């Protein structure tokens, strides 16, 4: 069982959350010409490496907020959690 520290509600079990994937992916700027390759990178291509991974989770059975979680994909250890709009240093 993973325990995720929701920045709004505190420590909760993984059962209350749903996963939203890689949080480092940025949507292309729409006020300029976007190439097929840029869309590809946004929609499909992922690094998905072993080690520290910044990812989105939604506290779906709690406050329903999207949050960012820094987790190790090799050990499942969770290091830090952030609000969705928080900048991650």
């Amino acid at each position, binding site marked *: *069982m*993973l325990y995720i520290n929701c920045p709004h509600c505190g420590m909760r*079990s*993984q*059962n209350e959350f*749903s*996963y939203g*994937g*890689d949080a480092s992916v940025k949507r292309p700027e729409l006020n300029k010409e976007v190439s*097929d*390759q840029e869309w*590809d*990178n946004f*929609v*499909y*291509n*992922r*690094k*998905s*490496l*072993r080690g520290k*991974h910044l*990812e989105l989770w939604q506290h779906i059975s709690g406050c329903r907020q999207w949050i960012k979680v820094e*987790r190790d*994909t*090799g*050990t*499942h250890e969770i290091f830090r959690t952030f609000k969705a709009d928080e900048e991650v240093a």
Partner: protein
Amino acid sequence: MQKYSIFNLVKKAFSNHENWDLAWKDPTPKEEYDVVIIGGGGHGLATAYYLAKEHNITNVAIIEKGWIGGGNVGRNTTIIRSNYMHDENSLFSEFGMDLWRKMSQDLNYNVMFSPRGIINLAHSDAQMNAYARRGNSMRLNGIDAVLLNREQVKEIIPMADFSENVRFPIFGGLMQPSAGTARHDAVAWGYARQADSMGVDIIQNCEVIGFDVSAGKIKGIRTSRGNIKAKKVGICVAGSTNILAEKLNMTLPIETHLLQACVSEPVKPVLDNVVTFGAGHFYVSQSDKGEMVMGGDLDGYNSYAQRGNLPTLQHVLTEGIAMMPFLSKLKMLRTWGGIMDMSMDGSPIIDKTHIGGLYLNCGWCYGGFKATPASGWTFAHTIAQDRVHELNAGYSLNRFNTGHLIDEKGLGTKTWIS
């Protein structure tokens, strides 16, 4: 190579089975190979075998970080089927079914292929319609499919829950009678033994740490046991694909996820077929030893852990008990996990890359075991001829760019959305 037969078995019995030849050698890596296959799993071993057998290329090495057959080919639920709707998937898988039927004779190794049939249960009229469509599509591609009504399903699997007041009543099912199971380890060992006998070097405990690429062409690989030159390199590493891709500055439409499976204590024969629950994701069959072999959903987040968490297992087994209540009486014997190369449309990639002489075989999601022979056969063809075969033409790497996705279920890495 020593042939396995009843006569040899009897002969060796007189010497207490102590002087059998080794099934494969433990060679030191040579300086150069015509083809290097990275990954000594089912697909890599099959690729090397078909390179030697079909294309007469025997100066081949298989480079494996751990031991052969220690990854997903040793961790799956051994289901073999070709019940797909889209042409790319169904023709490819049915080609594989033919290879499965001949495999034990072909490899001189009993892979215990057991075509016991698979039944996908339907729990609504809409699902029956969808299965009728899929079944018709399968039959147009020459694959056997039978649409069963509730009474017919009840005759085959009377232990399923046919009571009236359940949340997901069984309306019927789609059966592929020629689908089945096989002994997974035997598949890896059988391919390894034959490939080795034709001159392929199986190099274990050898990790790939880098690639030598110059002028857009592959020149060789760097490993924990030294540099190895190669004219061609095939990557066949399932859940570790992204780790190698990063060393090549490639970003792929692949995420690595965790999938669990489990077996119960062994019981007397109760289930003849493979059965899947249609209102969620759960499948079950009974092994020759009597264990109920069960699996279902991904854990649902990127992971390289090769071990799972209980919430997903509980969720999956809840579905199993809804389908077959007697399962709740069984004790769990073992659970385990493997890491899946989940592609973004749920279909695999077998293709050339932008680097000359470098080939990619990945994206098997959790359907890799059944594809072992067809994947090896087509990957060997792609490497030997430097062009894709018509069977794997649809499994291109650039289909995500051109929009030619093969969305069998339209789920990709987010399979839990269904």
